[in-house]
C-alpha cells in the first residue's frame, strides 16, 4: 500500500481535520506521502515533516495556489502525481469535497465520501441520510479516492517525525476558473461547523430580535449561533445559520438547543454532538429524547438567567 494525502491548509497552518485525516492511512500502514499545493508555505511543510509516519512531503510551490484551491488547477496537478498510489486521501472540508470527485472522475474511480472509520484497505464506514444510517462499503478498485470526516478519527501525533521534502514541478493553470477573492465571516464568532460550542434557536424564539439573546450568550461562551430550519423558514435568521440535514451538520462538544422541538431533519444535523442541552417549555418535545440535559422552562425566563450566570 502507498498513500497520498492531499493537505488542506491556509498557507500558515493545516486546516482542522487534516491531522485526523492522516490517521486513516497511518492506521493502514505502508508508505504515506503528503501533497502540499501552496505558495511559500514553509510553516505547513515543517508541520508535516514533524509528523511521525509520513515518508515524503511533496510540495508544489506556485503563486497559483496562494490561498486558492481552484479545483480545475489542483486536479491537473494531482493527475500528474497520483499514478501508483493505492489510496488518495482528502479531508472532507470544502477544499477536499470540491477537488476529490473531480480527480476521481478523471481517474475513472468511484470516490468514497466522508468516511468515519477504516475497516481494512478496501472497506470503509460512512454515514448516509445525514447520519441516520451507517453504511459499510467495500471497494474493488485498484486506486481508492477517499474523503475523511475530520471529527470522526483521532488526530495523529505532530512531533519527532523525519519526513523528507520533495519539490515537484507545477503543471500550471487549467485556465477555466479564476479565483477572485474571499470574504470571511463578518462576526467574530467561531465558524458553525467547527465550533466547540453551538447555541441554536428554533421557532420558539418568536422573532429575529430575540436571537440577540442567543448571540449575547454565544459571545460569553465563545460559541457559534445556529438555528433550526423552522426558524430560518420563519425568517428569524438567514439560511447560513441552519443546522440540520439541509443545513450544516455539526458535532461540537456542547450543543444547546433553545426553543427547538427537534424535527427529524434538525436532529440529523446535531445528534453527534458530545453533549446536548435542550431548553423548551414543551416537555413532550422530541428534542428531549436526544438531550443529555433537558430543562423544561420558558426560554424567555431561562435565557436571561443563563446570560447572567455566565458573567
Amino acid at each position, binding site marked *: 500500500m502507498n498513500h497520498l494525502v492531499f493537505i488542506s491548509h491556509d498557507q500558515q497552518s493545516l486546516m482542522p481535520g487534516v491531522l485526523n485525516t492522516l490517521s486513516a492511512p497511518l492506521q493502514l500502514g505502508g508508505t504515506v506521502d503528503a501533497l502540499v499545493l501552496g505558495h511559500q508555505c514553509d510553516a505547513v511543510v515543517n508541520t508535516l515533516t514533524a509528523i511521525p509516519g509520513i515518508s515524503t512531503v511533496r510540495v508544489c510551490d506556485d503563486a497559483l495556489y496562494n490561498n486558492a484551491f481552484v479545483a480545475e488547477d489542483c486536479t491537473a496537478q494531482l493527475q500528474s502525481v497520483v499514478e501508483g498510489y493505492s489510496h488518495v486521501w482528502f479531508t472532507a472540508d470544502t477544499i477536499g469535497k470540491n477537488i476529490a470527485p*473531480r480527480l476521481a472522475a478523471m481517474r475513472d474511480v468511484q470516490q468514497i465520501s*466522508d468516511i468515519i472509520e477504516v475497516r481494512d484497505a478496501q472497506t470503509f464506514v460512512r454515514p448516509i441520510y445525514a447520519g441516520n444510517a451507517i453504511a*459499510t462499503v467495500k471497494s474493488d478498485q485498484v486506486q481508492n479516492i477517499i474523503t475523511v470526516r475530520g471529527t470522526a478519527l483521532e488526530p495523529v501525533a505532530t512531533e519527532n517525525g523525519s519526513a523528507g521534502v520533495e519539490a515537484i514541478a507545477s503543471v500550471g493553470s487549467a485556465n477555466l476558473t479564476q479565483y*477572485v477573492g474571499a470574504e*470571511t465571516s463578518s462576526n467574530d464568532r467561531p465558524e458553525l461547523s467547527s465550533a466547540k460550542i453551538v447555541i441554536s434557536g428554533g421557532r420558539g424564539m418568536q422573532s429575529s430580535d430575540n436571537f440577540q439573546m442567543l448571540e449575547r450568550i454565544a459571545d460569553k461562551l465563545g460559541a457559534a449561533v445556529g438555528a433550526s430550519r423552522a426558524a430560518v423558514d420563519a425568517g428569524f435568521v438567514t439560511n*447560513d445559520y441552519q443546522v440540520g440535514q*439541509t443545513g450544516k451538520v455539526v458535532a461540537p462538544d456542547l450543543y444547546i438547543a433553545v426553543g427547538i422541538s427537534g424535527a427529524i*431533519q434538525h436532529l440529523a444535523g446535531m445528534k453527534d454532538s458530545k*453533549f446536548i442541552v435542550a431548553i423548551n417549555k414543551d416537555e413532550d418535545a422530541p428534542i428531549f429524547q436526544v438531550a443529555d440535559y433537558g430543562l423544561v422552562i420558558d426560554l424567555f425566563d431561562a435565557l436571561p438567567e*443563563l446570560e447572567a450566570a455566565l458573567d
Partner: protein
Amino acid sequence: MLVFVCLVTGAVLFTLLKLNRNISLKKVPMKILVAVKRVVDYNVRVRVKADKSGVETQNVKMSMNPFDENATEEAVKLKEAGLASEVIAVSIGPDKAQETIRTALAMGADRGIHVVTEEGTEPLCIAKILKALVEKEQPGLVLTGKQAIDDDSNQTAQMLAALLGWAQATFVSGLSVEGNTLNATREVDGGLEKIALTTPAIVSVDLRLNTPRYASLPNIMKAKKKPLDSLSAEDLGVTTTPRLTILEVVDPPQRATGVKVSSVAELIEKLKTEAEVL
C-alpha cells in the same frame, strides 16, 4: 389618408418586428440543463431495512432533493431574466423519478428527460449519463444541488465537470452571468469565496442561493402536458455496473437517555462538573 395611415403603421410594425428579430438573433441565450433527484423527504425518519441491505424507500414520502429545488429555481429565474432559452430537467433513477421531473416542470422547466436506472446508481455513473446528455443537448450551463440528502456523496457535479473538461463551481450561494463569464459565490468553511468561470460550466448550488417557488395548481396542470422523454442508460452507451459493494447498512449508535434538570443553575453546575464542557 386612411391608406397612408395604414402604410405608415405597417412600416412601423415591420421595423419593430425586424428590430425585435435582430435583438433575439444577436444574443443567443444558452440552454440550461438541471439535474434533479428523487429522495426520501427531508422530514421523514428513515428506517434501516431488517436485512441491513439499505434504507426502506417503499411506502415512504419522496420529494425532490432540497438542493435540487434551489437548482431548478435558479434555472427558471435565469430563463425569466432572458439569460436562458430553455430549461431541461433531467432525472436519473427508477420510473417514479418522472414525478420529480414533473415537479421541476411545474416550477417552470420547459421539458424533461428521464434516464431509467436502478435505485442507488453510483455518482460516477450518473455523471457519465449526464455527460452523454450534455453532448446531445449542448447546454451552456448545468445546474444541480450540491449533494443529495440520501447518499450524501457530494460528487456528481464535480465528476461531470471533470468528464466534460468544463469549469466547476460548487456550493454556490450567489450567481450572475456576464456574457461568457459566470461570477459565483461559494459557501466555504469559514466564509465565502468568489470565483469567475468560463462557460460552459457546471454549478452545484447551496440553500442560500434562492428560495424555491411553490408550484401553483395551474402550473402543475400545465406541467402534465410538457414533453418528457424517457431513455435507458444503455441508449446513451453507459454501463451501470457498481464499483462499490454495500456490505451492510445499520442504525447509528443510540444516545444514552439523558436527565432532566430543574433550573438554569443546576444545568450550569452539571455542564461544569459532570460534562466538563464549560
